[in-house]
């Protein structure tokens, strides 16, 4: 555990991980835009079919195409906003407040130390005012990143343990997990919002009711059913993407923390403290739960190994870290 070792402590291949994350982010955004466009087309077609025009063709609905184009335009603008301010959106969703060096000198120092060790610019620093123990990093590039920790974490971790946790977050920055995670969080939010809106329209609006008894009636019912099914499935699919975020990432970030600090024992004791804390952080938005170092909602000791969990069980992570030492 000397300061200057020559070989890496463990193999932590960030460049391969970063390439995967760049590619996955592009695929993710394309798929999310496509889902949004399909939803918008179905909505437009349903509305048009309600007009009862006998020449209506569900495969080439003018209103549907118009809606789809508008949705694509909105998604593209949304993508640009995400590129520019994804980290700030996520900080707001998490209820984290940015702090300057005078307000949290030690946290700023530790973040700067880990940035130096990783060879990246110093991220911005934010604090979540809660007794829960948690932390996350967010941002669309290595140069524009924010790291957020909870007040409880600052109060109950030693300097070395804090350093290990920040090292873990710096691992996500190096691997560009932050980019993919931020994009997932921001787009899952958009799809959920859109589907919610459609379902609400269907419940309260006139969309679901047939006007008159035209020939288009049967077709219209089919379209409404399609739309509702799509509006239910789309957010589920988006959630699945969020859950499928490989748990491998957490192991890799843990290993990177050990490589940066040369001190896996500090991370082990930090994770043990995180695991022993029973305070949940329910102010966090569910769209970004995958970004946290430990899941802010779920009880992470018991069922976290299950298929749907966004995080591996802490016991597994600690066991792997012990293998490094």
């Amino acid at each position, binding site marked *: 555990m000397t*300061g200057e070792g020559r*070989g*890496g402590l463990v193999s932590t291949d960030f460049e391969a991980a970063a390439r995967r994350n760049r590619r996955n982010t592009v695929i993710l955004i394309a798929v999310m835009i496509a889902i949004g466009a399909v939803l918008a087309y179905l909505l437009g077609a349903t509305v048009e079919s309600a007009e009862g025009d006998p020449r209506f063709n569900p495969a080439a609905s003018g209103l549907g195409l118009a809606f789809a184009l508008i949705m694509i335009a909105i998604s593209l603008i949304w993508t640009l906003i995400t590129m520019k301010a994804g980290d700030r959106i996520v900080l707001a969703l998490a209820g984290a407040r940015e702090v300057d060096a005078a307000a949290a000198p030690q946290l700023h120092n*530790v973040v700067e*130390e*880990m940035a*130096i060790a990783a*060879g990246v610019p110093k991220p911005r620093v934010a604090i979540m005012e809660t007794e829960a123990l948690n932390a996350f990093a967010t941002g669309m590039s290595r140069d524009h990143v924010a790291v957020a920790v909870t007040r409880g974490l600052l109060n109950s971790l030693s300097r070395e343990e804090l350093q290990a946790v920040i090292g873990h977050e710096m691992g996500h920055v190096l691997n560009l997990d932050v980019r993919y995670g931020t994009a997932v969080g921001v787009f899952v939010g958009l799809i959920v919002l859109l589907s919610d809106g459609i379902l609400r329209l269907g419940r309260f609006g006139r969309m679901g009711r047939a006007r008159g008894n035209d020939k288009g009636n049967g077709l219209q019912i089919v379209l409404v059913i399609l739309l509702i099914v799509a509006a239910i499935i789309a957010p589920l699919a988006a959630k699945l993407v969020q859950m499928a975020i490989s748990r491998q990432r957490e192991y890799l970030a843990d290993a990177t923390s050990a490589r940066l600090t040369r001190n896996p024992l500090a991370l082990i004791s930090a994770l043990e403290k995180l695991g022993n804390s029973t305070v949940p952080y329910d102010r966090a938005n569910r769209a970004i739960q995958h970004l946290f170092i430990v899941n802010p909602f779920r009880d992470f000791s018991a069922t976290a190994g299950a298929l749907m969990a966004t995080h591996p069980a802490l016991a597994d992570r600690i066991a792997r870290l012990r293998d490094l030492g």
Partner: protein
Amino acid sequence: MFGWIVLGLVVALAVYAVATYNGLVAGRNQVGNGWKQIDVQLKRRYDLIPNLVEVAKDYMGYEQETLKQVIAARNTAMNAHTPAASGPAEAQLAGALGRFFALAESYPELKANENVRSLMEELTSTENKIAFARQHYNDSVMAQNNRIEQFPSNVVGRLGGFGPHEYFEVPAAETAPIKVSLR
């Protein structure tokens, strides 16, 4: 047909050579920048030490000798301009600071002083930053040297005049255990 294949190969080779050359240049700049980062942190350490000693003086009346050693080591290190001279001087300063930190443990009033606490935190952090900057420098050197020595990038490296970089070696005095006198 044959001509096209040859042309394709030449183009592929040229693309590879350009990409590798640019990668080597980026790596060399990263190594240079890593070295500068170490200097930035060393400078910060020189600036912090007199402040800390000034405040600590009032509390550590019996330890004037240690404080003098810290200041003397700091001045020597600051005035060492060649790498050969700065290695041992830095090591001596690190040793003197280590003794100072160890002694400070036995002065509760000193550690309770808000001013001292924040100076100690700054100095601890600066010591860490120096260590991490060196660690990152060595990591960059290893990555760059691998590229310069491994085939086939070593061909481009040879032609482009890229030489291997030197690792930062830990001075012997820094690896030696600190002697603690109990009297």
